[in-house]
């Protein structure tokens, strides 16, 4: 085998289903998860003859917010297009999507983002045995639910950074409140385009890995596909441009569709939906966003995970992993900060609160931060040594450790840790660190 000197070139396509109240083009409920089949449908999302789409403004706003959060430009002129293909879960024979003028243009979020567009989801095929006959049934509850698709430039070179990126994207969607982005509910779907390059340039082929429903599987699939391609290239073979799936059992990718079978989607501008304009100066109806409305959307973007992690580490002195774990949930950071606010002036630190949340998951037991704080106070009240016990112990330790006291007075601040340890030993660990430190320092500094 030839020497392994290929560099993976990976680009991503991420679909995120939006959690808007109603569907993208009609008034039906968008939340379709685990609902009785075909109970959230109307002429529009069933694609009945004569029905017409009407754009849901909330969905467009969600995409704009997501784009702004990911540093993308907002296209001042955006339109919908029809993407034609035949499948039983696509009732109109075309999907309303965006071809050349998506809502969001390029941006930068760890890697370069190519675009973010808005489209409608399809129905769902359900395979069941009905009256003893194997049947394929169609559930249209999901039909026309808003879906946004983000496409990155092919700038990833390993599976790990792909997963890190995707997790962050998932978190951003949750922070913005535009989607639950749950992989297991299909609200977030991943596709990776993988090719291998010898010199870092983008190769003339790509293999699309599709239908992956977890981060873990995607990482494994990428690994498996890279190995497969390396082998082929090493054997001097040309890699076929195709779509492949991932077989978890065999831990390999398998061919689903080759280029010859690729669709000609026959895109053309959706005549039923006038273009959208994002500008103050245009007054063409009906979907229009003024500059001030865009600014308003911008102001609705909360602190994003990356900034929050940084701030938690600086402001509360939290270790990396505490910040990471707290921020990786949409609600816990607010809970944490509320608890810190309530616990201010008490003997325990913000880090203690974080510790109880991260390691003991105590926030799960107390829906309100106030409850958690009360509990901490109860615990500390019972367990900690009293002020006088602490004072006695401190005096004893100072009396018994002349050398350390000497060192401290000679400027060796680090001996404080040792002395605190000694006090705790005397108190059998019931000392309140904060109090011990204060008393100790007071005694040492004032003689």
């Amino acid at each position, binding site marked *: 085998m030839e020497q392994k000197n290929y560099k993976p070139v990976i680009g991503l396509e991420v679909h995120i289903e939006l959690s808007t109240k109603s569907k993208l083009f009609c008034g039906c409920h968008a939340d379709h998860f685990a609902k009785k089949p075909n109970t959230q449908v109307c*002429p529009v999302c069933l*694609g*009945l*003859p*004569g*029905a*017409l*789409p*009407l*754009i849901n403004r909330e969905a467009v706003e969600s995409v704009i917010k997501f784009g702004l959060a990911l540093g993308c430009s907002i296209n001042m002129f955006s339109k919908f297009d*029809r993407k*034609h293909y*035949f499948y*039983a879960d696509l*009732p*109109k*024979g*075309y999907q309303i999507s965006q071809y050349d003028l998506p809502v969001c243009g390029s941006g930068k979020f760890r890697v370069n983002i190519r675009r973010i567009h808005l489209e409608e989801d399809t129905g769902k095929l359900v395979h069941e045995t009905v009256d003893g006959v194997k049947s394929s049934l169609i559930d249209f509850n999901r039909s026309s639910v808003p879906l946004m698709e983000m496409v990155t430039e092919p700038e990833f070179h390993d599976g790990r950074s792909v997963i890190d990126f995707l997790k962050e994207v998932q978190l951003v969607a949750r922070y913005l409140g535009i989607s639950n982005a749950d992989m297991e509910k299909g609200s977030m779907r991943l596709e990776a385009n993988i090719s291998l390059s010898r010199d870092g340039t983008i190769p003339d082929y790509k293999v699309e890995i599709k239908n992956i429903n977890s981060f873990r599987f995607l990482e494994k699939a990428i690994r498996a596909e890279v190995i497969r391609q390396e082998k082929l290239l090493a054997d001097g073979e040309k890699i076929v441009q195709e779509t492949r799936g991932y077989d978890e059992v065999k831990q390999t990718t398998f061919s689903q569709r080759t280029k010859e079978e690729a669709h*000609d989607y*026959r*895109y*053309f501008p959706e*005549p*039923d*939906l*006038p273009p959208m304009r994002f500008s103050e100066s245009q007054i063409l*109806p*009906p*979907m229009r966003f003024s500059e001030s409305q865009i600014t308003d959307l911008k102001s609705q973007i909360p602190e994003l995970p990356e900034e929050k992690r940084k701030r938690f580490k600086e402001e509360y002195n939290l270790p990396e992993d505490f910040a990471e774990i707290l921020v990786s949930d949409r609600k816990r950071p607010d809970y944490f900060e509320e608890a810190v606010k309530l616990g201010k002036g008490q003997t325990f630190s913000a880090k203690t609160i974080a510790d109880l949340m991260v390691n003991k998951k105590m926030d799960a037991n107390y829906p309100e931060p106030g409850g958690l704080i009360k509990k901490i106070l109860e615990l500390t009240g019972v367990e900690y040594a009293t002020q006088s016990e602490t004072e006695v112990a401190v005096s004893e330790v100072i009396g018994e450790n002349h050398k350390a006291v000497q060192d401290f007075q000679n400027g060796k601040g680090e001996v404080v840790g040792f002395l605190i340890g000694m006090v705790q030993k005397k108190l059998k660990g019931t000392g309140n660190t904060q109090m011990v430190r204060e008393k100790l320092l007071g005694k040492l500094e004032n003689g």
Partner: protein
Amino acid sequence: MDLPLTIKETQKGLIEKKFSAVELTDSYLERINKYNKEYNIFLTVSEEDAYKKAKEIDKSEKKLPLAGVVTGYKDIFMTKGIRTTAGSKVLEGYIPPYSATAVKRIEEAGGITLGKLNCDAWAHGSSGENSDFGPTKNPWNRGCTPGGSSSGSGAALSANMCLVTTGTDTCGSIRLPANYGYLVSLKPTYGAVSRYGVIAMASSLDSVGPLGHTVGDVETVFNVIKGGDGHDSTVVDHEAQAIKSKYKIGIPKEFFVDGIDPEIQKTIDEAVKIFKSEGVEFKEVSLPSTKYAISCYYIIQPAEVSSNLGRFDGIRYGNSREAFGDEAKRRIMLGTYVLSSGYYEAYYLTAMKVRTKICQETEKVFGEVDAMIAPVAPTPPFNLGEKTSDPLSMYLTDIYAATANLSGIPSLAIPSGFSKKGLPLGFQLMGPRFSENNLFDLGKKYHDAISFEPKVALK
């Protein structure tokens, strides 16, 4: 009873209790029973619904704009609970769960739904001969086409089977049946009337509009159906334009060239004279790209048709794709081809550019004049079977229609008289976007001047 031929007379009769809405319904149904077999106008008669509504009208004290107006709908309008076929075997047994906005509004305004009218399958055609349920015959002459694609919508009025009808106009399909039936009809501004619930032919060209016996009736129905409905994003609520005190009408020179039938030329010349005597000025104008309009239309339209018919994939609606007729298949293939990758730029994109050019030219003309006068079709009603073997010559029937659809402007078809053979003649008046009011005003001026009386064909 002698059926009244206008909304005004109908409502006068109802108020004065000369007849009831139920009696009106009886009389129309009588005529349907007498003539429909021969003329093939109604595909579905909704007798029960009609009587139910008629009884309500008779009991009601409410003053509604269309109270007691017996209406037939082109069978491309969704009617809740009443079979809707689009003239195609594909939807032979389809009963829609909802009604089109236009239907709903007419019914809410007091209209009595009598049934569904024959048309070219999917509205593809100019003669009604593409209907999978057989062609409609022209009540003025059984051997002639009543004009398509809203063939039943025209013939139902000529045969006096109802008082007003609706149609759709993608390239003349409302205007031609009016022209071939001694009727008035309006192809409204694109975006004036909601298309919701009307089976799409070519979405960027389709207009929904009324047919009636007089300008006033068409105006009344238009005022009922126009305006946004929260379903069709292309509808614009537009304030009615003020009626002008003085008009200048353009004569587009490209429309009056070789090939125009002498009787049509003559009737338009006479109309111009009458307008002039009413103080209207005339001016020759030019639409240089007219010669490309049909080619442009026959790319954009099949492209959208191929997309819109994709949903009839054989999985739903009962019948398989085999049930599509030849014309629909022809358009699906043409449209699929012009949208295919590698051909899109050469065909669809080029056609869209030509369309923009045509729009600019009409806009320029309306900087100079308030309206344009033109023939509706090159000839009076032609014989059934005359053009069926030659789709291209059939397509050329649309030559005067395409401009209004491609540029989204309104056009009013107006009857002017009869040919030597006793076939209806007329012309169209096109105006700038949302100038319907002025077109109605011009139409009424002309009809007042010639003391126009509505006429029906069958005794």
